[in-house]
């Protein structure tokens, strides 16, 4: 196959054409903006169908080995697809935990059996994955994981609870961090990492209502749930290290993701468009100097973020702190999104007060919803405050 796609140029043209022809129409309901916001069955089925279609066209998991369902192409091909999906505002690939966390991890350190068993289902969205790291009351401090997994014959008996499980009610598998040894000296040393089935007795999920009033996350309860010992990744007690490996995949600091966008992108241009259409004191908001000044600021910031991704690949231009750009990606983009949405709400005059479900709300209430949902990224996966600590300590070498 590889020789059929002689050049990246030609491939790109093909991709552009395919997405132009195949991106689905907006359905009659508001789509979620990321995999963390899938709150209704309608939304779920729409997105699952779309991911499957993209995979079947050969545009997902392109760099993963052919043997397990991937494409066997160099990463550059997948990058072209990913960029094009973003450019054309395609719906995102919803099985995000599988594509960006579990899949790369299984390919990296899983058994032959695990690769055969899980990879294809991740790509074609037959098997939805979720993540079970956070627990109630312990926020970002993974060392405090209290969910217990006790070895009992050839099974682990799991008790406890996980929170912020996206797609929890749809998932077939969970990447689960649980405590297998409560007595270790380091609080990290007693953890183990599992590829846990979700459809076993003793596992239940309960939806969490978000500050927008919508749903999207669940809390997962383990009540003497039994999972096979074969589900463990790495050795018992190495869960922390394995979890850190997945976090590296998630932060994009290492390669290996299956590709495809995982959230609807917000661009400053979308807000510029809004500012053209929204009225502020009787005139288009874009004519207001304050709005213009703010938009230009955001355009500069967006451009800088885009360019930094490019510069990060030029060793001579990042030699002093090679990881700075990758390590700060989450902080920069999540905070950017939050602030940008705040501007989008504010520039619309009184109509900015309209919310999801109001027939006259601009873009069907996208902006206030995006603003409130933006906190999921500034809070989840380590709050912005913790991200700043991490960058300060690991990139700049500042003391803890």
């Amino acid at each position, binding site marked *: 196959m590889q020789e059929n796609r002689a050049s990246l140029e030609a491939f790109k043209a093909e991709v552009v054409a395919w997405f132009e022809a195949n991106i689905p129409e907006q359905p009659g309901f508001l789509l979620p903006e990321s995999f963390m916001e899938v709150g209704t069955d309608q939304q779920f089925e729409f997105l699952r169908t779309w991911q499957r279609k993209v995979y079947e066209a050969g545009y997902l998991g392109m760099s993963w080995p052919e043997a397990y369902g991937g494409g066997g192409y160099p990463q550059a091909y997948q990058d072209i697809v990913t960029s094009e999906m973003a450019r054309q505002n395609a719906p995102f690939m919803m099985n995000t935990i599988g594509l960006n966390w579990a899949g790369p991890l299984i390919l990296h350190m899983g058994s032959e059996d695990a690769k055969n068993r899980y990879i294809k289902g991740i790509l074609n969205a037959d098997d939805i994955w979720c993540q079970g790291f956070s627990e109630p009351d312990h926020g970002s401090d993974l060392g405090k994981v209290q969910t217990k997994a006790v070895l009992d014959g050839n099974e682990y008996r799991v008790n406890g609870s996980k929170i912020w499980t996206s797609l929890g009610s749809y998932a077939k598998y969970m990447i689960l961090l649980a405590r297998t040894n409560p007595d270790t000296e380091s609080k990290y040393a007693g953890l183990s990492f599992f590829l846990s089935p979700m459809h076993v007795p003793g596992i239940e999920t309960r939806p969490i209502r978000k500050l927008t009033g919508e749903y999207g996350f669940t809390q997962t309860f383990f009540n003497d749930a039994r999972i096979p010992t074969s589900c463990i990744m790495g050795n018992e007690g190495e869960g922390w290290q394995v979890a850190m490996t997945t976090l590296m995949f998630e932060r994009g600091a290492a390669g290996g993701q299956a590709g495809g966008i995982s959230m609807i992108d917000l661009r400053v241009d979308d807000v510029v468009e809004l500012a053209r259409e929204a009225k*502020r004191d009787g005139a288009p908001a874009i004519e207001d*100097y304050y709005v213009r000044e703010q938009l230009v600021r955001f355009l500069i910031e967006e451009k800088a973020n885009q360019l930094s991704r490019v510069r990060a690949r030029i060793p001579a231009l990042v030699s002093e702190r090679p990881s700075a750009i990758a390590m700060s990606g989450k902080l920069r983009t999540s905070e950017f999104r939050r602030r940008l949405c705040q501007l989008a709400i504010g520039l619309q*005059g*009184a109509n900015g*007060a309209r919310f999801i479900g*109001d027939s*006259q709300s601009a873009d069907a*209430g996208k902006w206030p919803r995006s603003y409130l949902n933006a*906190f999921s990224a500034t809070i989840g996966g380590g709050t912005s405050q913790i991200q700043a600590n991490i960058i300060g300590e690991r990139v700049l070498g500042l003391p803890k």
Partner: protein
Amino acid sequence: MSEDSNIKSAPISFNDEQVMLLDTAMSFCREKSSVARVRDLLLSDSGYDAGIWQEIVALGWTGIAIPEEFGGSELGVNALVPIAETMGRFLLTTPFISTTLASQMILQGASEEQKTRWLPGICEGLIASIAITEDEGSWDLEDIRCKAIAHEDVLHLSGSKTFVFDARKADIFVVSVMYEGMPALVVLEKDQLNENALRREVIIDETRRSFRLTLDGVQVKTRNMLPAGNTISTLAHLNMLANLLLSAELAGGTAAVLNVVIEYLTTRKQFDRLIGSYQSLKHPTVEILLGLESMRSLVYHAATVWDEQQREVAVRMAKAQACEAAIFAGDRAVQFHGGFGFTYECDAQLYLRRALCSQLLFGDAAHHRKHLAPLLLS
């Protein structure tokens, strides 16, 4: 030191009556409007408790800034501020603000006969609202598309209004229209509205009830129109009063959300430390405090100089500060609650969503700064 020496003329007065009012309002709102009660009301159609409204009427608050001759207690606009602030603090939702804005428009712009017709009723519990904003959501209150055309002594209205708060329960409405090419104000009574004239609007603040009001086909006697010569000054008065009361509400809300944050920061641990000990949370929380102190000072100043020339500058400063500081407070409150802050259960969202809404009513910070520039710099 520099601050000390900076004081030129910066009056805030707060007399014994106001002190008592603030005390009363605090006890009343604290008792009547627990957060649990607020959350129950989010689900209700009217958004408020009719019994509490009756108590507010009985306390005389609906007549507090209305002259005695029309049944009020004539304490003036600055007596409204501690009440609005406290209601904002406890998210006590009733048609108090809507009714007050409408009654003050009538007081400002109506003939003696009209005042006599409507104000005593309002003092005794009639609910009123204002229908001022239109589809474009402009903050220029003279930017009106709705029309009134007179046939003999009947006005035929057309067009639609948006952001008509508490409209479902309102007995009367003060409506702005164009009449003979000029802005005019008309008072509608609820039985003059067509069936289905009201449609609920979904707004980001779930504590408020907003409606779209269709005027097409409404007929009302010309004697319900306020005297033409008063229209512009009445709209200007409304603009200032609405911004003052919204600023007061925002100050109250910010005080409340600050306490929500402090409560969490002093009880929640992470990495074995109370999270309030982290400077990345502590210092922005101090910034919330400083924003709050500034807005309260500006709000009570604006109330103090309400009848003076400085009113416009004072009110616009208060609203500019209140919008930014209240949104900052709500936004940080959500963030600092971590995962819990992202849930509907965390109270931070109530204040944040209210602040987002309030900033967009009658002008946000940038809008008021823009209007302050010529007042301050020339």
